[in-house]
């Protein structure tokens, strides 16, 4: 339960919005809810709907609309490579293909140990530092810029030891 696990964070989130506008808290609460497992489970949907005073369908609709929310588990780390026009002009497509080849997966796939899901995503506002990717994981989101395939594999190897 969010209210038990993150009481202070929930209180802080609710304090940002007028008391009669609790629906505004749905997005920050979803970010909080999916931190640990990497997706929002059914219990969290019910709890968030209750906190915000909206229906479970309203919450599910938000999860479906926004790409950073997930309703099913994947790799513990989601490695999301920007392949939009500016990054592609700097080799992002080739970068993505090679990273996937080294991991033995297709874009969108997850390594057999369940550690990494590699995805192509839309622009991440880091066009001058391509190839780049963001990692969505238990610590939130972090950018990795000016990457090479080797540096990416090193990052994954380090994560393999650290992320349980």
């Amino acid at each position, binding site marked *: 339960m969010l209210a038990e696990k993150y009481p202070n964070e929930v209180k802080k989130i609710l304090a940002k919005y007028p008391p009669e506008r609790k629906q505004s808290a749905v997005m920050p609460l979803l970010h909080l809810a999916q931190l640990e497992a990497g997706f929002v489970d059914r219990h969290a949907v019910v709890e968030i709907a209750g906190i915000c005073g909206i229906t479970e369908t309203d919450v599910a609709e*938000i999860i479906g609309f926004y790409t950073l929310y997930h309703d099913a588990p994947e790799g513990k780390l989601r490695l999301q490579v920007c392949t*939009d026009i*500016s990054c592609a002009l700097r080799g992002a*497509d080739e970068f993505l293909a090679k990273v996937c080849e080294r991991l033995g997966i297709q874009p969108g796939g997850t390594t057999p140990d369940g550690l990494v899901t590699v995805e*192509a995503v*839309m622009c991440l506002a880091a*066009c*001058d530092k391509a190839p780049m990717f963001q990692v969505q994981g238990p610590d939130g989101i*972090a950018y990795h810029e000016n990457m090479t395939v080797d540096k990416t594999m090193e990052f994954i190897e380090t994560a393999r030891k650290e992320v349980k």
Partner: protein
Amino acid sequence: MSHLLLRHRDIPDIGEIDVYKKNGGFEAFKKAVTSMKPQEVTDVVKASGLRGRGGAGFPTGIKWGFIPGNIWPHYVVANADESEPGTFKDREIMESNPLQFLEGVAIAAFATGANAAYVYLRGEFWPVAAILDEKIAEMEKAGFLGDKLFGTDYSLRIYTHLGAGAYICGEETALLESIEGKRGQPRIRPPFPAVAGLYGKPTVVNNVETLTNVPLIVEKGADWYRSLGTADSAGVKIFSLSGHVNKPGNYELPFGTTFRELIYTYGGGVTDGRPVKAIMSAGASSAVIVADDKALDTPMDYASVRTLGADLGSASVIVINDSVDMDWVINKTIHFFKHESCGKCTPCREGTYWMLHLIERIALGEDVKATTELLHAVAKQMQNKCLCPLGEFSTMAVTTAIERFPADFKASSSRAKTGTIEGGKHG
């Protein structure tokens, strides 16, 4: 000239509150709150000629002036959704010169009578939101945010709100829906946010870079600001330069700097020493400019870029050299807009869907001539019919690439082999 917006490049620790204060920080906000009427602040910004830096270029002071005095409360929302492919300036401001931006938010709030302001950041800017939260807490502690500021009756609080991956939330009414906890789909306008915005109340929505200019304008005056840039476009602009250049990055320059200067003097020239073939001046939403000498020597201000059949927009300059075919470029932009279309209005939802199918057929070399004509017709039919600018934007590169680079849309065996997204650079 030293930087006015990217000040951290001259003063590396400008993000620290003590350093910012030592360099004149919060003087403008204090001056506004203690010695000016809100209307006077709006008048200075109006007179400065500051125009919105998010892409639309609407005069900022005039926008503030639309806020009615008979409906309360008012809100200020900073648009930090920065999602246009090719744009990465607001992130640098917020990461490295966050206090000047937040002071701009505070002044805008005072000028429009708002006691609460929200900074809407794209969800990917998770660490940036953490920086802003920290800076907001420091400002509260130092007496620059909170109740009864500078001994007056004015109170202000600033909050961050993280999105979760949706380009459409850069559109101001979609952004407001998102803060309200709904899907980010644009509202029908009118009413405009100035009258019925966040929670149905009068709301000013300004871009991060726009707001970062405001403390300087209040401090140094409208005449000083107008003396920078051109008659049409006052002040300085951050140009996000990306694509085929040796030194991509943000460059803060006066309006009126030419494309040639940006690409060759600042950007270190084109990758592999090849000629520049095309320029997209406003990111993926841009018409594609043929990069001939006339275009390269065109000053980058709102009016001049329009003479090239394009817009300056948020000044996200994507450089494309002659190793790339334009069918591949619009394959990329169409994929983007198809993915980001919110689905609310039919011309955009269906139009981007069909454009994607057609560009895929072109990539596979299927009846390229007829398919290109059909793609052009679909894009044309979408124009002026969409609920919000996203749908229009999705067609800009498509129609102009086909019209201005017809040779890039001819069937070729190499194209048939390279396929679609994986095709990448060819030629």
